[in-house]
């Protein structure tokens, strides 16, 4: 199946000389959730803005279901829904009028049943007659999503959908995203909450300084990049790491009641077997063993630092 979104060597230099995108190529499969991760100023918003028609590209091509976003802009944009980073709503507009307007802009016939189901799905149906200025921040964000869904897009861009949103609302937003995915909508979201990418995304793309450093299956990225820690709980607490175990780079934890061994899953030899033998040789009695994986956050920080170096 050909990808729903094909970005090839996309470049954007703003007047004034800031190169926000320096040759980004990316393919997105229909129905997947792709998370774009990157620090502030990496170029995530510029990438989305360019694909959606808010910004003129300086070079490269973008195709949506085969339609070039410039030559064939009507067909391309008809398939795209955009929820920008900043909430932008007309304060006196009623929710219902807003979603109707959004649908109308796409030249589609009125379809109250569809708009009702969108509003219900986003728990906004009760608020349909409210003016947007009367709504809470979380509701406003959902109104933005409702407007983007009014024309039944096949690809939805969510630019930092949960920035500055409390934990509960974030969970709610995740549910919305997962339901949309279940309906077959392709979703590209940006975030700098790594747990969000980890929880939602099928694939993760890492953006830094206008470049897409990598795109990988979320799980594979974890496996590939993931450093793991082996936590060894001891029967008797230690004051210091025994000299015989100095080579392993062990760290004391829990007030000496545990030793932490960090190893790389990628390597052929993790050193665990030898470590366990040496622990026994050193006369340490173990109470329990557990492993934990480093979060995407740590992976990400590592990647960006590699890029800078």
């Amino acid at each position, binding site marked *: 199946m050909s990808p729903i979104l094909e970005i090839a060597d996309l470049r954007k230099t*703003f007047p004034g000389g800031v190169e926000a995108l320096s040759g980004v190529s990316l393919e997105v499969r229909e129905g997947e959730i792709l998370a774009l991760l990157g620090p502030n100023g990496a170029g995530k918003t510029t990438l989305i*803005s360019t694909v*959606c*028609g*808010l*910004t*003129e590209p300086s070079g490269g091509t973008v195709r949506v279901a085969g339609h070039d976003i410039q030559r064939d*802009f*009507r*067909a*391309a*944009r*008809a398939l*795209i829904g*955009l929820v*920008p980073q*900043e909430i*932008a*709503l*007309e*304060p*006196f507009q009623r929710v219902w*009028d807003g979603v109707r*307007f*959004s*649908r*109308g*802009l*796409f*030249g*589609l*016939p009125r379809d109250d049943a569809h708009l009702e189901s969108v509003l219900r799905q986003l728990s906004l149906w009760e608020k349909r007659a409210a003016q947007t200025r009367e709504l809470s921040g979380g509701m406003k964000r959902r109104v933005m999503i409702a*407007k983007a869904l009014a024309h039944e897009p096949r690809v939805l861009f969510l630019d930092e959908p949960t920035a500055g949103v409390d934990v509960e609302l974030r969970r709610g937003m995740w549910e919305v995203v997962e339901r949309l995915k279940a309906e077959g909508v392709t979703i590209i979201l940006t975030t700098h909450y790594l747990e969000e990418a980890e929880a939602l995304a099928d694939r993760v793309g890492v953006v830094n300084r206008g470049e897409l450093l990598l795109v990988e299956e979320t799980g594979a990225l974890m496996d590939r990049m993931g450093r793991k820690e082996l936590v060894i709980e001891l029967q008797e607490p230690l004051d210091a790491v025994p000299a015989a175990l100095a080579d392993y780079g062990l760290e004391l934890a829990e007030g000496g009641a545990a030793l932490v061994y960090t190893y790389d899953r990628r390597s052929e030899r993790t050193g665990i077997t030898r470590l366990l033998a040496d622990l026994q040789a050193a006369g340490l009695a173990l109470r329990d063993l557990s492993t934990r994986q480093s979060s995407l956050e740590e992976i990400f920080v590592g990647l960006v630092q590699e890029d800078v170096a």
Partner: protein
Amino acid sequence: MNAGAIWAIYRYEMGRFFRTLAQSFISPVISTSLYFVVFGAAIGSRIDEVGGVSYGAFIVPGLIMLTVMTQAITNASFGIYFPKFIGTIYEVLSAPVSFLEVVVGYVGAAATKALFIGVVIMVTASFFVDLRIAHPLPMALFLVLTCVSFALMGFIIGIWAKNFEQLQLVPLLIVTPLVFLGGSFYSISMLPQAWQTIALFNPVVYLVSGFRWSFYGMADVPVAVSLVVIAGFLALCLAAVWWIFRTGWRIRA
């Protein structure tokens, strides 16, 4: 062509107008009535007739023009500036809508509002003075052309403006003086010779003159010239809009 989008924009812009219908309606009625009290009654009692028409009736076409021009500019410039200012323009930019469709939607709505107010003033005036319309079709043509071309000008101002000051600058410093000096309340022939010559450089003089001709059959300049000037102004605004479209000037980053 995305006719649905034009309609959505038009409908939305008109919605704001109708939400404040009382205000949209009452304010021109009151200001027109005030003009009649001040100019018609106070000054008009000293100037009894201009070219065989009572002073009160004489000022009606100019008054309509004055209001229609400023309303068309204000409505169109605000109409496009506001979504730029609060950021909601993203929706229009990311929709399958061409720039010309956007223009038709916003300019069409602003012109309609100006036209509506022009008609309200005309009806209000008919209660105060004996209003005759000698040439109804040319009258309608002048009115519509003025609404459309000044709405286009307002649209361009709204695209150009980077802040509220700039938004008000052009109407305040250029349009209002031209309109007030454009012969709304007097005939050019009433001015001293030197000022008559200067007045001929003011395009608004031609619009007011032509429009007044369609009411009372009298004009400061030949009607054909008036038509050429309004058509030329319209062409100029269309050319500017076309240029903005070609270059994407101040719309997309």
